[in-house]
């Protein structure tokens, strides 16, 4: 493992830095894509060991992290990391997550960045390695032995030669501060030495969760606490014209009606009183501008003013396409989808005088602290955000916006206030994963080999993660008078100086040659990747595998179309166009585990015109271009009469570098694969001419626990000696593509739009006859 930052780290660090100082197109794009990830200076200095690790008088260890548990298992994995590097039993490690009073500012827990950030050479891992080295140094002085003759084992430093010469961590430090900087040379243990990290340690929180004792943010209770509920605008763009407080006359328990521009809320003594009050409060709205018709939305996107970006351009695609033996053209579209957390978002705020404390499930403790400070007109240092776990978020759900709600309401009444959103407001106003329209043209030579890949996409965007200074990026900040980030139209002035495939806009099969270097995973030399960000009528923001999933759906399905055209086996055809060895390896591993039979698609069942037909499909990608290699094989059944499709097996092979916890990784693969299936088969935000209509679980279709759950098989490729990559978003990225390809294999019909609903499948089958 090298100490030089990788391209990804460098870009993301620069992104984080620039976000606070400027707003160039690059910055906007990065901020919109994910928000800042990196570790920043705050009153907790990340360069100091004491900011990360404390050795207590009893020899136990308290660590502090800016990367928090969202259900993905990072809490247990970070315990393993600390236990491993510090050589203390796991049970003797306590971890404090994302409390702006005490933890370093690590931006946002997102983007599959917690593992790359904290499990390589920097940050938490570096702190833990520094601490072990420091403890051995202290013991060397205490015992009068050279450090090279000492080892740290189970919370004790002892002589390698004489076990009797030993001193415990507690005795060495005695609860004092360590007062040393993070060491750039402190040696991390090699994966071969690991005894805790890399092992299938069970999640430490499962027992409390399964017995209903775990404290979620929803369970936080503060003395004197009141209950708030909000009234969101009637429709996008609507603003408050009048609020008639007299409409609440006679209702028990109402403490205050709070109005700030178009932010409206009610605070009451008890939660049910607040619910009834917001239902009864008469608010007059000035209407919004209306919504573009959904049935023409993808065409609508093409007509919008756009901010363009050219990721790569070999400047010859029109020529090579003109010379190609065959050209395959296709348009793929993907709808807005939502995070749809099973619990609606909740926060508790206590604003008193010029101080505020907010208990929040935000992924972004420090940025949320800054946003709340802006909203309340307080210095950021007077605001404390304490992360308390929420319902799984999968990106920016309502956690940030409800934290603002609670802060505004508590500020207005001077007492602690708990706010929980209702289901309709959660779903109508969250920051959706973006819709996409993707046009592609692929040119082939006379031998059936791809020579050209041309990609052009339109995706709508509005708002995003609020970061440190954009509270208007979510609904509460916008209603309170802050502007969301919106698209500033601009033409691309040439391709990017270096190839950064962070959004997976480029397919795996191109060379990615720009700025004198080739960063792509493939061999196709004639390449162009042009994106258009256009205005969105709805708030958007990162949803698990943002843009990467939509792009991969388009790339990997088109690759399948091309393979079918030249009658090649889809896996062999992919391998012919790849050069990245790790990607090729996961693809082969998935095929092997699936018992893949080499043959072209569509398969034998596609000749049948009735009954249930079977097919298989594959897809692969390097997540974000450098953050995890994954391949999948999907086996499906399609009922040609009902149009229903079901998956029977999903086989996922994954290489994310050295594995911190194989059970945790399997868990992420299984959840990602099935969530990906739900998104591929049923999930779609819908609207009419004025407002969103998918506002509950009958109108937004998530696969329930009782659906016909496929077998999910994971093939883990452990690769010590390279940088650790994230594993939270890899599997989900490839599901829609593989299912679409399997659907084609089973029926001979290509559907270029998700979700693959029975109606859509039936319509496609009947068109083909």
């Amino acid at each position: 493992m090298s100490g030089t930052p990788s391209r990804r780290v460098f870009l993301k660090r620069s992104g984080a830095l620039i976000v606070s100082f400027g707003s160039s197109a690059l910055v906007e794009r990065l901020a919109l894509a994910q928000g800042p990830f990196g570790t920043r200076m705050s009153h907790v200095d990340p360069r100091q060991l004491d900011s990360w690790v404390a050795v207590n008088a009893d020899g136990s260890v308290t660590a502090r992290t800016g990367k928090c548990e969202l259900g993905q298992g990072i809490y247990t994995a970070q315990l393993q990391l600390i236990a491993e590097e510090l050589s203390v039993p796991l049970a003797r490690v306590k971890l404090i997550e994302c409390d702006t009073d005490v933890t370093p500012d690590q931006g946002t827990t997102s983007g599959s960045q917690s593992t790359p950030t904290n499990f390589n050479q920097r940050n938490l891992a570096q702190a833990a390695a520094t601490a072990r080295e420091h403890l051995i140094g202290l013991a060397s002085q205490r015992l009068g032995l050279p450090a090279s003759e000492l080892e740290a084992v189970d919370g004790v430093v002892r002589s390698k030669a004489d076990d009797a010469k030993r001193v415990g961590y507690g005795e060495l430090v005695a609860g004092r501060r360590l007062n040393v900087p993070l060491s750039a040379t402190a040696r991390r243990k090699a994966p071969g030495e690991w005894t805790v990290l890399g092992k299938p340690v069970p999640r430490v929180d499962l027992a409390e969760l399964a017995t209903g004792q775990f404290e979620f943010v929803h369970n936080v209770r503060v003395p004197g606490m009141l209950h708030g509920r909000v009234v969101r605008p009637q429709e996008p763009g609507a603003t408050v014209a009048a609020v008639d407080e007299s409409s609440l006359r006679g209702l028990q328990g109402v403490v205050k009606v709070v109005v700030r521009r178009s932010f409206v809320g009610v605070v009451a003594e008890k939660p049910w009183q607040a619910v009834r009050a917001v239902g009864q409060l008469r608010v007059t709205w000035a209407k919004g501008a209306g919504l573009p018709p959904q049935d023409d939305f993808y065409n609508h996107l093409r007509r919008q003013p756009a901010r363009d970006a050219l990721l790569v351009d070999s400047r010859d695609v029109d020529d090579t396409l003109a010379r190609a033996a065959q050209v395959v053209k296709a348009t793929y579209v993907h709808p807005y989808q939502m995070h749809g957390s099973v619990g609606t978002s909740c926060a508790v705020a206590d604003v008193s005088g010029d101080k505020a404390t907010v208990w929040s499930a935000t992924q972004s403790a420090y940025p949320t602290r800054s946003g709340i400070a802006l909203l309340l007109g307080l210095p950021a240092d007077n605001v404390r955000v304490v992360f308390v776990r929420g319902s799984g978020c999968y990106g920016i759900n309502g956690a940030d916006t409800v934290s603002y709600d609670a802060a505004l309401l508590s500020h207005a009444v001077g007492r602690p206030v708990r706010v929980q959103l209702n289901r309709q407001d959660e779903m109508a106003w969250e920051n959706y994963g973006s819709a996409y329209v993707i046009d592609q043209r692929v040119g082939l030579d006379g031998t059936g080999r791809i020579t050209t890949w041309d990609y052009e996409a339109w995706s709508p965007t509005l708002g995003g993660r609020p970061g440190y200074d954009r509270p208007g990026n979510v609904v509460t900040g916008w209603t309170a008078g802050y502007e969301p980030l919106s698209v500033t139209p601009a033409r691309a002035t040439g391709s990017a100086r270096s190839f950064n495939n962070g959004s997976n806009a480029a397919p795996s099969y191109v060379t990615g040659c720009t700025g004198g270097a080739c960063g792509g995973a493939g061999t196709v030399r004639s390449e162009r990747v042009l994106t258009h960000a256009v205005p969105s009528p709805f708030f958007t923001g990162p949803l698990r595998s943002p843009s990467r999933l939509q792009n991969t759906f388009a790339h990997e399905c088109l690759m399948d179309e091309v393979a079918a055209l030249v009658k090649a086996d889809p896996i062999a055809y992919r391998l012919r166009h790849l050069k990245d060895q790790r990607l090729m390896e996961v693809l082969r591993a998935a095929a092997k585990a699936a018992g893949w039979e080499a043959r072209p698609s569509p398969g034998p069942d596609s000749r049948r015109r009735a009954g249930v037909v079977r097919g298989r499909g594959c897809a692969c990608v390097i997540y974000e271009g450098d953050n995890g290699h994954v391949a999948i094989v999907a086996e499906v059944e399609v009922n040609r009469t009902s149009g229903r499709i079901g998956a029977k097996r999903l086989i996922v092979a994954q290489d994310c570098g050295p594995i911190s916890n194989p059970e945790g990784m399997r868990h992420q693969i299984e959840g990602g694969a099935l969530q990906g299936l739900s998104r591929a088969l049923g999930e779609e935000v819908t609207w009419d001419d004025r407002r969103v209509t998918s506002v509950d679980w009958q109108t937004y279709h998530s696969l329930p626990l009782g659906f016909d759950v496929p077998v999910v098989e994971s093939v883990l490729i452990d690769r010590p000696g390279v940088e650790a990559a994230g594993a939270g978003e890899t599997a989900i990225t490839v599901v829609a593509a593989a299912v679409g390809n399997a659907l084609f294999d089973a029926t001979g019909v290509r559907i270029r739009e998700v979700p693959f609903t029975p109606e859509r499948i039936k319509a496609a089958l009947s068109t083909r006859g």
Partner: protein
Amino acid sequence: MSTIALKVNGRSHAVDVDPTTPLLYVLSDDLALRGPKFGCGLGQCGACTVIIGARAVRSCITAVGTLNGAEVTTLEGLGTPQAPHPIQRAFIDEQAAQCGFCLSGVILTAKAFLDGQPRASDAEIQRALSSVLCRCFAHTRMLRAIKRYARERRA
């Protein structure tokens, strides 16, 4: 306001509330229980599930005024981290949760169903869970845990 008598996890309570208040609000606010959760308020997802008598009930759409004298069991009423109920033990052993927010719906719906139909087939179990949501999609492990509990229960 009126006084409603409830027995929750074996303890008797008299709560003075508006009788239209959903049971969930009484459990999580007045009685400070952590098991039942507000998920949708519409009876669609299961996160608020409790067992009343022998039935799984969605407490977010059950007015407390209709329940005078009822015996309610919440997720924390089944067992503790130290002494979990066998179905909770199965979930812990199978690591059958990610965020864990939905567990009241999953565990209590499955338990009430299997208590009534201990010999249910896998397909019947699946059907019983057709309106329970887990958005982390820990489905494979959850179904494994439930089937394991079903097997152990029969043994």
